[in-house]
């Protein structure tokens, strides 16, 4: 029996505003518990929310970037439920009239085709605090620092058909919100969280199957594994004559399984109603234009441009535009290097990415700046150093030894292009290896590499490889001759 998987994702992106969505308290992560919660965040009697305009701006920016309709009038509603880390006993969210509706995101499939995933809506809401269950011997601690942090909840259509597609969509979305600079994208700190609605149906069945919701999966890898596990579970259940129960499930990464949290039947009735403390949010055409003017070049457009302008392969363009920061870095290197687009791509994707991965640093922390890398490429191009030596220079730059020219100078790495000097070395090597010379002359042409290596070694790697090759061939004469 052929089964089809149907997935819809709800992503909570934490908007990177400086202050909270309805109060002036700071949103910075990692402060001492309850030091960034003001009277409004605590839900003290008598306090009132005031909407942070920056959060609206960011939501609008997102709406424009995914080709969505930005509602000229959207409404905040209260979602009522009791929980100790929800100070007011309700969350201010948007319900009937969200700020963003009907957008889309195009994702690339493995077969090279593109698929359009619908975005049903994106709405603004406040985050809750955190309950801390350890360290309080039988009690729970409440940290309200996060309470009131602005979130944009982005809800996709059930257009995704596999865990891989889901991950592709998530990665695309992740990259987009960071491009837009509306979210720091930090998944460990919970700035980008995902709930997955998963169901299966027989291929060709027009009706959706009963879905389960997997809560709060906080890495791309776990999303893929959680969905795959859940799909397997549902198929097994259905094939053995069982029924899927609509419920919320939690993914346990340690056991690699999902398990039931609560059935939908016992779920809360949230009693949504428009929040009488807040006026409807009105987005004027002028505001929309103002935000549109701040939109950066989006990933798809950038990728296309990289292929056209720099002659990069789709793969290289993909990698280099995966984040705005990396793309900016790359373009900077291209400029500094005198428009060596392809070598710049190789170095950024090779040496630089390798070094970053190895050291666990983020691009922004790289000791090698784009200027430095660009200069290095220039020195390769103008023959000052060889590509091989350049790797040593890169390592030295990485270790904080300074600008490429200074390193080349200090270490005396300048390529030897003085024919006389190379010739002397070649003569030395030929004289020292009569056996190999005889074999070469006897037809073993492969031995040329041996002589190149020996001369290189004698030069400390500084001999110009092209000159060296030419000189050796001349001195040794034709192989087999």
């Amino acid at each position, binding site marked *: 029996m052929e089964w089809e998987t149907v997935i819809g994702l709800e992503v909570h992106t934490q908007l990177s505003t400086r202050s909270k969505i309805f109060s002036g308290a700071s949103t910075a992560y990692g402060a001492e518990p309850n030091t960034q919660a003001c*009277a409004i965040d*605590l*839900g*003290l*009697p*008598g*306090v*009132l*929310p*005031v*909407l942070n305009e920056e959060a609206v701006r960011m939501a609008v920016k997102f709406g424009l970037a995914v080709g969505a309709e930005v509602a000229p009038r959207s409404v905040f509603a*209260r979602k*009522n439920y*009791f929980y*100790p880390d929800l*100070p*007011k*006993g*309700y969350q201010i969210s948007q319900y009937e009239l969200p700020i963003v509706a009907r957008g889309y995101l195009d994702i690339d499939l493995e077969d090279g085709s593109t698929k359009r995933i619908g975005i049903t809506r994106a709405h603004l809401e406040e985050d809750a605090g955190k309950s801390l269950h350890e360290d309080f011997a039988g009690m*729970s601690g*409440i940290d309200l620092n996060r309470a009131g942090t602005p979130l944009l909840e982005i809800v996709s259509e059930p257009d995704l058909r596999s865990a891989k597609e889901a991950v592709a969509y998530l990665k695309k979305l992740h990259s987009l919100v960071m491009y837009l600079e509306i979210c720091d994208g930090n998944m460990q700190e919970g700035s980008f969280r995902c709930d997955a609605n998963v169901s299966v149906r027989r291929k060709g069945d027009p009706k959706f199957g009963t879905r389960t919701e997997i809560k709060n999966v906080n890495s791309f890898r776990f999303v893929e594994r959680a969905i795959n596990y859940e799909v397997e579970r549902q198929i097994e259940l259905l094939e053995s004559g069982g029924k899927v129960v609509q419920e919320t499930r939690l993914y346990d990464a340690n056991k690699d399984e999902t398990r039931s949290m609560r059935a939908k039947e016992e779920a809360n*009735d949230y*009693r*949504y*109603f428009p929040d*009488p*403390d*807040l*006026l409807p949010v009105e987005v004027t055409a002028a505001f929309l234009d103002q935000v549109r003017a701040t939109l950066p070049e989006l990933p798809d457009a950038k990728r296309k441009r990289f292929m056209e302008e720099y002659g990069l392969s789709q793969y290289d363009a993909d990698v280099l535009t995966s984040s705005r920061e990396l793309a900016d870095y790359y373009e900077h290197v291209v400029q500094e290097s005198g428009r060596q687009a392809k070598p710049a791509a190789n170095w950024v994707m090779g040496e630089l990415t390798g070094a970053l991965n190895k050291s666990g640093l983020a691009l922004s922390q790289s000791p090698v700046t784009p200027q430095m890398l660009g200069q290095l490429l220039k020195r390769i191009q103008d023959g000052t150093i060889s590509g091989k030596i350049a790797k040593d220079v890169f390592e030295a730059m990485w270790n904080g030894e300074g600008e490429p020219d200074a390193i080349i100078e200090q270490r005396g790495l300048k390529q030897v292009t003085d024919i006389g000097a190379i010739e002397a070395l070649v003569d030395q090597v030929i004289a020292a290896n009569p056996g190999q010379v005889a074999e070469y002359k006897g037809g073993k042409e492969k031995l040329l590499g041996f002589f190149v290596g020996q001369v290189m070694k004698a030069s400390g790697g500084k001999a110009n490889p092209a000159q060296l090759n030419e000189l050796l061939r001349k001195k040794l004469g034709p192989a087999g001759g």
Partner: protein
Amino acid sequence: MHDKTIAELAAALKAGEFSAVELTESLLARIEARNGELNALITVTPEQALAAAKAADAARAKGEAGPLAGIPIAHKDIFCTEGVRTSCGSKMLDNFIAPYDATVVTRMKEAGLVMLGKTNMDEFAMGSSNETSYYGPARNPWDLERVPGGSSGGSAAAVAARLVPGVTGTDTGGSIRQPAALCGISGLKPTYGRVSRYGMIAYASSLDQGGPMARTAEDLALLLNVMAGFDPKDSTSIDHVVPDYTEQLAASIKGLKIGLPKEYFGEGLDAEVGKVIEAAIDEFRRLGAEVKEVSLPNSKLSVPAYYVIAPAEASSNLSRYDGVRFGYRCDSPRDLEDLYKRSRGEGFGAEVKRRILVGTYALSAGYYDAYYRKAQQVRRLVRDDFIKALNEVDVLLGPTTPDVAFRLGEKGDDPVQMYLSDVYTIALNLAGLPGMSIPAGFAKGLPVGLQLIGRDFDEARLLNVAHKFQQATDWHAACPKGFE
């Protein structure tokens, strides 16, 4: 000194007849002596009051005193006052010392007014008799066996008994106007959004509005001058120019068009109260006003619509009282659910629980459209009625309440009877319009209130109309026996 109005006190302070400290001491002594029988104030703050009075005197000595510096005031215990218990009349907040001042309180402080204490009220402003207060009912100075009205009952009783010349109140369905009427004083509910709600503990956010209560319209104008204005901390406050409300007080009302909503004069209106209102209308005719009948056809729907919307908002507003962060917490809860259930079960009184239950029901899945959405549609119709009537006339006039103050306990068992005592006041909150109640005479030996209703932001006209009436009559000057 206690028998003087705010305007008279301000003049006396300015003239140096007595100091703010002397005035404060005198009223504190009177409160000490007389509050026991009234239970009008539930917190008295002598130390802060004397410090504020001293500061007012010092400012006056330096020539820096504003017009109301040194004037004593009391705040309804729904306004947060930094460092002072703010109970909202509830056991739930009996232990709550507010860490900040409400905007209204801040404005009063900045204007140099001297807070003497906090006034009694129905629990979370839910009630029309002050009987739902955790601290016991305030009593009506005109008859201590009768209610002062509610929910701002303590405020009204304090002013009527001359314990304090002016107070703040809040009005969600009549909670300023009804107690003002029953205690024979003047009270103004401003246009929704005119006075900041920041720091005013919410009952029903879309209806709540703070306002002044005092003996005369002139005093209300002086207090409103301080209270009114846009507040960036309250998104529903409106950035609309604030006039000097005393400026137009004495203007002639010759040619003023007064509308009498016929629905306010029909069945249910006590005959004696009706006669008092008729006499007041004659007075307005003598002052040159033109009187005509108008209609508010949907007014009978106001009470049911109100008792869906207000409890719905309340059920959500009061969710924060969960025993977790502040306020009442039950003893040794077994688990989270027990903490919630017992803290709320023990901390809230019966009327508050009733409204939370009603409101929760009205917002529930499957009932929302039939109740909450429908009530909002009715609300629109109610407002449209007023707007239409106020296109024909300048102000509307009628009785504030169907009857005079009732006896303590008289309506205790029948919430619907209690709700109907607000039948003439509730619609105004649904419409968001300004209204006021002023003393118009006596029926059965008890004060009768006359209600005036105006267009959006037309408080100055209402005050002018009320002031002209008070210049022509002396009902507002009548003092309950024993409190002269």
